[in-house]
């Protein structure tokens, strides 16, 4: 245990050192004019901008918008995905009919939908939520479908022999089996939800981190662009930490759950 703790600590030190080295090189480069300050800004200025946003409190509105949109698209998309996944996995004829349509729908690049959603749902949060839902839905759907379809035959027979009705079978076997698939894709689907809503904001919005970045770009304010990216990155790290916690709690029955430090968010 002690050895692995020490290893973890040394990994953390290396991670921090790498970040510091990168920031120092960047700062040094822009101060010695190796990097053009106009195009690349400076870590110190970015940090200043972020702290200014925090001190004046102007950033919270945008953070709140972006993460509300992401949370909504994840919730709606996951709910729809689970529902569809379950129904189709249990009704194989329906699944066979819908299969090509689902494939086609999934192959549409989401970015091209953004302008259409803007027209349909306006500049507010719902056009972004719609975009996020189209991303999350498919990830969760495929995982739920697989989870139900690939639930262990022997376990199903065992539970049926113990007298389970169809409803009890769903509750004790199919849902847990599908959940384990869905949770293993939680990082991916939440990450995609955030990316989708930021892209949506970037293309047209009145608040949100994507909007902030787009605004800064519009006036060639590279410091603002990097500051927006930094705020987003911090938010994603926090969300990733929460998801890790949740995952470890809910999948504690699985052998060899990866440690958060070994996992890419």
């Amino acid at each position, binding site marked *: 245990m002690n050895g692995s703790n020490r290893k973890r600590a040394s990994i953390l030190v290396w991670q921090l050192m790498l970040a510091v080295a990168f920031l120092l090189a960047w700062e040094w480069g822009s101060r010695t004019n190796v990097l053009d300050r106009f195009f690349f800004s400076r870590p110190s200025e970015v940090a200043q901008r972020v702290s200014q946003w925090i001190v004046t409190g102007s950033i919270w509105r945008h953070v709140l918008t972006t993460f509300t949109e992401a949370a909504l698209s994840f919730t709606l998309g996951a709910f729809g995905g689970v529902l569809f996944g379950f129904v189709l996995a249990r009704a194989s004829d329906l699944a066979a009919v819908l299969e090509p349509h689902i494939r086609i729908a999934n192959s549409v690049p989401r970015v091209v939908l953004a302008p259409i959603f803007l027209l349909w749902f306006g500049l507010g949060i719902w056009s972004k939520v719609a975009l996020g839902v189209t991303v999350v839905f498919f990830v969760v759907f495929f995982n739920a479908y697989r989870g139900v379809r690939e639930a262990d035959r022997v376990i199903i027979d065992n*539970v049926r022999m113990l*007298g389970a009705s169809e409803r009890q079978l769903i509750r004790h076997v199919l849902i*847990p089996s599908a959940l*384990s698939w869905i949770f293993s894709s939680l990082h991916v689907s939440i990450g995609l939800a955030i990316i989708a809503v930021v892209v949506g904001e970037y293309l047209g919005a009145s608040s949100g981190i994507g909007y902030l970045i787009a605004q800064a770009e519009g006036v060639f304010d590279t410091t603002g662009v990097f500051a927006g990216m930094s705020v987003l990155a911090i938010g994603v790290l926090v969300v990733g930490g929460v998801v890790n916690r949740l995952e470890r709690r809910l999948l504690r029955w699985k*052998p060899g759950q990866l440690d958060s430090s070994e996992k890419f968010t």
Partner: protein
Amino acid sequence: MADTPTQPAVTLKRVTRRFSTYTAVEDITLDFPAGKFISVVGPSGCGKSTVLSMIAGLLAPTSGVVEIFGEPLKGLNQRASYMFQQDALLPWKTVLENIELGLVIRGKSKFDMLIEASEWIERVGLKGFADHFPYQLSGGMRKRVAMAQCWIVQPDLFLMDEPFSALDVHTRLRMESEILRLWTGSEKTVIFVTHDLEEAISLSDEVFLLSSGPASRVVGRYPIDLSRPRTLIDLKTEPRFHELFRNIWSDLRQEVLSSYERI
């Protein structure tokens, strides 16, 4: 053998099962006396598991009838528990939750379940492991959980499909003793499928021998007159055990040889 005129636990009447063109078992007629420990033996791939699945109702016969205590079987066999060869525990449930599953399904009260399940945890020697998940247990311990899971619902008929074949010899001997201990005095009928003749003889009241597949038939029934209770660890040195073994083996040998020829 004192033959009581009681109804057999299971009766197979001219049962045949085909899988598309492959005939697994053909025209089997057999009765399994109630309250006895009966083993079904045969070479690998002879259709023993098919017979057991049909008794469980997991498979329907292509033709013929399966009767359970005189009633023709429709759908799943409600009076039987089934212990699988593979791991059939629910990995997302703890030992306690796995064991009480059958009671949950029957809608027992939380309190009753806890009491009964705790009793079973002790009975199969897993005290202190109630909150463990299956992946944290050894193969032998998982089999103990499976045994308690099947037994807690108090079935009249206990079906076991090579349950210990994946265990090492010593763990296996312990599990065999456990199953005898649980069964003794319970008046339940056990149908135990195995390819291991020694295991079959040491546990059973009677051994049924199936011929090599495809289209497996019944070769013979062999009463095992070893006295009970049996001490399995000493049984294999008894002369009567060897006599029985030689007897049945000469027939089983034939079947094993003919199963080689088909490969």
